[in-house]
């Protein structure tokens, strides 16, 4: 086998095949003029939405990426039902975060601060409302700040959920920490290492358990949370982290993996809490990325595997909603941004309503004529 170098050049390709589809650079599809700042779609639930940020420090373990940091620092963004609709809208991200994200993703078709001017629907530090609210932990994809799931977070909060979105420090191009420090993507240095994904999701599970431990003492509104009703939802490796967290922490009762290659090792005896795979064609049964096929057999409780026709990896995030503002023409054949957001919000909320609110959702039992894009795997989806 004197063919190591030759084989190694195929490395990026092979590695990519094991991964969830990466963000396409799409430089070739740039349209001439960005349209100006984006406005996120209005939340669909009845409640106004408030948002606030918490900064937590776990001194019980060193940071997994920054060897000079003796504690793991985390930023948690909360979205929650609020008393009032008026007040200052929360910023989407800082200009610096926007710049680091665009630079990291190699998007040069719009000014670097563009994303910081995105208009959100949540009121900054609004007074929370409601009681006995279920909690949803959100975890973003690798290199992506938590804010890239804002559209979903705001919608869930408007439907009566408290959402705790975790910025897993050093796993994103930009996380602003107290004192204006900006943590960049240290984990990006080693993401080609074997076992990288498996290690990362274990770290995220520890992050999530710490957030659940700290929430009561760190947020004034925490008394409004029903701590017996907690779920976790994530995109890409954040989705795989949902399973990793559930395996580690019984407080997380249900979970959704949105288009994430699965890294967490499920015991051979199986796993019985409710779990849903929601993905793009990359994750059809028998497709090129077989980790969902592997884990599907090990899920012994309530489970669904839904693939959205026309979805791509970012369809479950805000990215398509921001394309016009960035001057990026959508790829042909891909779900329009508004439709992708609607489908994501609808199926995620249906799952959470069924498992955290105890409201049965026929939408999850069979294909729907309103949402013909949703294919139920493994029965009615196959590689194209």
């Amino acid at each position: 086998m004197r063919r190591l170098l030759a084989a190694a050049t195929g490395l990026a390709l092979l590695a990519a095949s094991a991964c969830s589809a990466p963000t396409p650079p799409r430089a070739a599809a740039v349209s001439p003029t960005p349209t100006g700042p984006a406005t996120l779609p209005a939340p669909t639930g009845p409640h106004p939405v408030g948002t606030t940020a918490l900064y937590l420090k776990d001194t019980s373990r060193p940071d997994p990426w920054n060897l000079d940091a003796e504690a793991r620092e985390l930023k948690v963004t909360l979205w929650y039902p609020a008393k009032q609709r008026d007040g200052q809208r929360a910023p989407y991200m800082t200009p610096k975060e926007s710049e680091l994200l665009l630079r990291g993703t190699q998007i040069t078709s719009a000014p670097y601060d563009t994303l910081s001017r995105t208009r959100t629907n949540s009121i900054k530090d609004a007074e929370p409302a409601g009681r006995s609210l279920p909690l949803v932990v959100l975890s973003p994809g690798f290199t992506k700040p938590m804010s890239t799931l804002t559209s979903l977070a705001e919608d869930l909060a408007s439907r009566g959920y408290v959402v705790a979105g975790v910025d897993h420090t050093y796993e994103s191009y930009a996380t602003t920490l107290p004192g204006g420090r900006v943590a960049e993507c240290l984990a990006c240095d080693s993401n080609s290492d074997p076992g990288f994904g498996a290690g990362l999701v274990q770290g995220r599970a520890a992050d999530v358990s710490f957030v659940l431990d700290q929430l009561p003492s760190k947020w004034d509104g925490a008394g409004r949370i029903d701590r017996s009703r907690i779920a976790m939802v994530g995109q890409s490796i954040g989705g795989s982290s949902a399973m990793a967290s559930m395996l580690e922490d019984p407080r997380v009762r249900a979970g959704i993996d949105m288009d994430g290659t699965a890294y967490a090792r499920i015991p051979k005896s199986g796993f019985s809490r409710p779990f849903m795979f929601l993905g793009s064609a990359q994750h059809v049964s028998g497709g090129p990325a077989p980790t969902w096929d592997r884990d599907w057999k090990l899920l012994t409780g309530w489970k669904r595997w839904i693939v959205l026709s026309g979805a791509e990896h970012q369809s479950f995030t805000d990215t398509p909603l921001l394309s016009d503002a960035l001057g990026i023409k959508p790829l042909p054949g891909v779900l329009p941004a508004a439709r992708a957001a609607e489908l994501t919000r609808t199926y995620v909320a249906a799952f959470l309503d069924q498992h955290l609110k105890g409201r049965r959702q026929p939408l999850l039992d069979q294909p729907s004529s309103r949402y013909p894009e949703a294919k139920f795997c493994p029965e009615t989806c196959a590689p194209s």
Partner: protein
Amino acid sequence: MTAVRVAAAGLALLLAAACTAPPPPPRGETGTAAGTVCAPPKGAPGKETATTIEVVEQAYFCILGNYHSGATPDARSLLTAGFTALTQELNRNGRDLPDAVMPTLTGDLKADWAAFETAYRKITGQVPDLRDKLAVAALEAIVAALDDEHASWAHDVGQPPDYYDGDGYGLGLEANVNASQADGGLAAAVPPLFVTTVQGGAAQAAGLRPGDVIESINGSAPFIDGKATRAIAALYPRYPQARPVELSLLRQSTGRRRSVTLQPGLFQRDLADLQVVRSKPLDDIAYVRVTSFLPDSADRILRAVFRLRRGRTLSGVVLDLRGNSSGSATEATRLLSAFAHGKVTAYHCTAGDTCQSLRTDDTVELLGLPLVVLTDRGCASACEHFASAVKDLRAGRLVGTRTAGMVSGPAQPYLLTNNTILNLPAEHHLGPNREVVDRIGVPPDHYVPLTPEDAAAGRDLALAEALTLLHR
């Protein structure tokens, strides 16, 4: 030529690892594609389909259009090699045919291909159940006929269905004759055969330990008259190979002999062991172990050294490159740039000896520290590029054993229509003195081989020698 398949399968396991970030743009080792018959893959290849005669045709013309590393391949010799393998495969299946006769070739590329394809169709028309097997055998042989270690065809790259990121597949052990040697570099293997690492799986369950001498494999001797035998290859089964492997073992410390039967399979590995760059201070020496020159590895290594330097006066660096079997020339050159400036680290040359020099990046800060590099037969490819540059440029000293001699040149992947990958080197590699390193390897300045006794005791004499040299 199972080698290619084996290499590819191993890599798939190893590399399936990473995830989700946008894949880094290919660097260094990849050249630009030429020709229209085949193109580099864009993104992850789709699901593999059967190898048809059309795929063989595509690969044949892809080679003729894009292989520039060595002498221009003789098209007729490629087709002859392909046909030879095809008749051997017929024979192995007990299905030889009276008209399985090599067609006459004229030297006209297209006409010769047409003649080959006609003969293939005539044969497979009579043994339709062997059709795919014969095409695979022919294509493997055509690629092997290039006699270039970096020319390969990756196919049947399957993963065990229960594979999780970071898992290994096999018996769960490494021996002093490593997997790539066992596959094609037996000539350099030295007796006795012994376990160097127990990784997990069957080997761990059976209580194997480093230093255990392997006296026989499936009843066959690993060495006959001091020469390694192919029996050693059975130590490294690759998925889907799953036949149990019987080993006779001698533990020298106790004199105890025993037999174990190891079932190949997936095994869980320690995630910390899989990190490609690891570092620690050994008193005033920065020790950095690097298992692959993956993208960004040079910067990771240098950051690790700078970190160890903070609050400490370092008197040297040990780079442990044992078992470092792959990576990018860009990283090797970048790393060398921390130890020497204004130098050429290697040449990449076409068949016509038009050479491109790989120069140090003199924007990289010089460390200004003495360097010792630990090498062994597992140091291949970019690792040898680095080792030969260290030696030729006197940037440091090499301790251990000779490197693998597997550095033919940077390869370009091409996607075939059945979603398999053909890797073809565009250029061949030469060291800083324009010497050939491929097949020969780089000899250490200080020869310190590993013995079973040292492996059993966990003694690392090569590292000890490195520290002595740096403290002298």
